[in-house]
């Protein structure tokens, strides 16, 4: 069972060997790589095609130009980058300049003119380029943080949105959020967060921090990482496809920043997309690449539509991501843990039953026999000692509850009692609290104990225990 799943999942995921041999080699030609490995050339080519990029301020090509460079000609805020840098190395953002001429970074550290010259000079020496080959420096305007990311971005570090495009179809996406650990950089290996984005809606879903650790909230807050709507989503998909078309980079990762006023801007194209995006998306690239392959995509709009239809999440997932609540059907398999769970033999000590999700009932009910099987026999015996008849009147039941209520609750497993009305009268039933797992969410239910032996469902889940769920009556029950 598990092995079959494993095998099926293996067929979905892209590994490095396959990425290099089947996708990068045949689809990313030398000519295209030359464009995208040179950020200045990328800027030029994209601008020509009408794809927005951050404005270039100026560039320095060699040491002589660096010596003659007039640093006062730069505006107070700018980004310095190597033209052929790898993995964000050598990129620094400066927000202001103080009276002494020091530039100020987002974390308030200051960089003197000498240090700045040193940085520029080590970039030219090739410190951040592939194989340490000589490089150039360029300066571009900073991208102002979009309001949507205000509470998601650590100290003004800019969230960076990546779209993987193949055959003019966007196939997978995530946004990288800088954290304290990542030093304000969007590098997952350094501890940034990667939150998957649903291609259909542009809303974040699952997230990881570092290279694989799952994470739910923005660190230090109660803000969910899922459910963030990326602004300008359709425009981003459009520009991503257009950037692929113009550079002819077949298997491309296109990285965007979103400016508060100017909207999405392409910061770079990557000819060797990393594979961690699969972990953030909890899904593989391989099956998506195979699906997108060979489709004739005539227009950009068609590419967007195909991406959304083929690789977008379903609505249910979307609701779960926005509300943080699980969508469940009318009938669900639930797992009930035995009393005194023995952690070593977890599998043996739980029971899977079909439960009716009943919004018409307030309190959850569980069958007496099932409860005995789960190890609550002593609680049932304790309750039966009171020999409460099941044909009481309402008034009598109420009175009886007041009289012997405390005695009933004297047993450690019994957390309350409830008055139950049925066709042949009213009776009192004990309430027991027990841990269950409904569709992956673990909760403690408070169930009254009734003989449900003749009924289809041995458990019905009532409103009081459904706070964490949304019920979709059309959802199909899986045997």
């Amino acid at each position, binding site marked *: 069972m*598990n092995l079959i799943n494993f095998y*099926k*999942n293996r067929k979905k*995921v892209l590994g490095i060997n396959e990425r290099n041999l089947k996708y990068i080699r045949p689809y990313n030609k030398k000519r295209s790589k030359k464009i995208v490995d040179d950020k200045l050339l990328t800027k030029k080519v994209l601008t020509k095609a009408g794809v927005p990029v951050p404005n270039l301020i100026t560039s320095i090509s060699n040491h002589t130009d660096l010596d003659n460079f007039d640093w006062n000609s730069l505006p107070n805020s700018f980004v310095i980058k190597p033209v052929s840098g790898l993995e964000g190395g050598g990129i620094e953002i400066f927000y202001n300049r103080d009276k002494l001429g020091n530039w100020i970074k987002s974390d308030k550290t200051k960089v003197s003119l000498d*240090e700045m010259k040193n940085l520029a000079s*080590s970039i030219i020496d090739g410190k951040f380029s592939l194989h340490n080959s000589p490089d150039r420096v360029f300066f571009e305007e900073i991208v102002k943080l979009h309001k949507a990311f205000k509470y998601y971005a650590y100290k003004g570090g800019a969230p960076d949105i990546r779209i993987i495009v193949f055959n003019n179809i966007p196939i997978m996406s995530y946004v990288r959020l800088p954290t304290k650990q990542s030093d304000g950089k969007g590098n997952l*290996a350094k501890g940034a967060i990667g939150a998957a984005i649903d291609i259909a809606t542009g809303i974040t879903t699952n997230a990881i921090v570092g290279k694989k650790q*799952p994470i739910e909230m923005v660190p230090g807050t109660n803000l969910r990482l899922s459910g963030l709507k990326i602004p300008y989503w359709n425009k981003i998909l459009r520009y991503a496809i257009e950037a692929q078309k113009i550079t002819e980079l077949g298997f491309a990762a296109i990285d965007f920043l979103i400016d508060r006023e100017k909207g999405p801007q392409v910061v770079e194209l990557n000819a060797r997309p990393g594979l961690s995006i699969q*972990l953030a998306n909890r899904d593989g690239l391989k099956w998506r690449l195979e699906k997108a392959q060979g489709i004739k995509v005539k227009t950009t709009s068609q590419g967007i539509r195909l991406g959304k239809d083929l690789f977008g999440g379903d609505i249910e997932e979307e609701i779960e991501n926005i509300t943080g609540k699980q969508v469940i059907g009318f009938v669900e398999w639930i797992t009930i843990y035995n009393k005194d769970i023995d952690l070593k033999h977890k599998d043996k000590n739980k029971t899977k039953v079909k439960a009716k999700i009943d919004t018409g009932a307030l309190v959850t009910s569980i069958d007496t026999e099932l409860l005995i099987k789960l190890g609550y026999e002593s609680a049932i015996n304790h309750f039966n000692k009171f020999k409460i008849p099941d044909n009481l009147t309402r008034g009598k039941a109420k009175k009886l509850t007041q009289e012997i209520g405390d005695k009933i609750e004297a047993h450690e497993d019994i957390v309350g009692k409830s008055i139950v009305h049925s066709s042949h009268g009213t009776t009192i039933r004990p309430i027991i609290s027990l841990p269950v797992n409904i569709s992956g969410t673990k909760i403690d239910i408070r169930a009254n104990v009734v003989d449900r032996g003749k009924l289809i469902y041995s458990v019905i889940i009532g409103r009081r225990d459904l706070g964490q769920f949304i019920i979709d009556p059309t959802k199909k029950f899986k045997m």
Partner: protein
Amino acid sequence: MHPLIEYLIETSGISEASIVLLLMLPLVASIVAIWRQIIGLRTFGIYAPILITFAFYQLGTTPEGHNIIQGLKYGIALSIVVFVSASIAHELTKKIRLHYLPKMSIVLSIVAIGVFFMLVVASYLKKGGFISIDTLSILLMITVSEQMIGIYIKKGRKSAYLITIGTLLISILIYFLISWNKLQEAMLKYPYFSPLTLILNLIIGKWTGFRLKEYFRFKSILNQNESD
């Protein structure tokens, strides 16, 4: 011994060690390729592990024949001295922000000084073997330290250490293999076995399966249920 090899050694006077090393090279390179491509562990390129392996081999070569323990002992000692002094040199120069090449030159100089002191200490302690240590091996090891510092700068300390350890591990593994008498004899007897590794490499070169490491990396996706 194969007649051709016998002719080269007996008649032409080429050293047996040279022939063995030449015939072993394709095998050594193939193992590094498997280590990286199929298992997925990282090394400093394909070149560094080969250099380190041969440095170890040189260190184990004595006038009386090959001494595998001596090679291992001196090799590990030399590696530690080289990599530790390279890291110290890097940490020292990090703060003052130098250009890449002068910085690397300083790093290599400090490594050379480190090895020099190792020799001083060895002669003081009267460790005879160390004094006759092979110059070529020292140079090989020092050059490898450049790649370590390159990774250090780009990927940080942790990656640099992990890759260094990985590189040393594979080098030592291969060193044991090439020092194995039976294998050496087999190579001299069947020299045409050596180019057969070409076929192996063609297969590895077309390999699109997961690297062993990726089964761990993507564990969370692979163990997922259909319904999740």
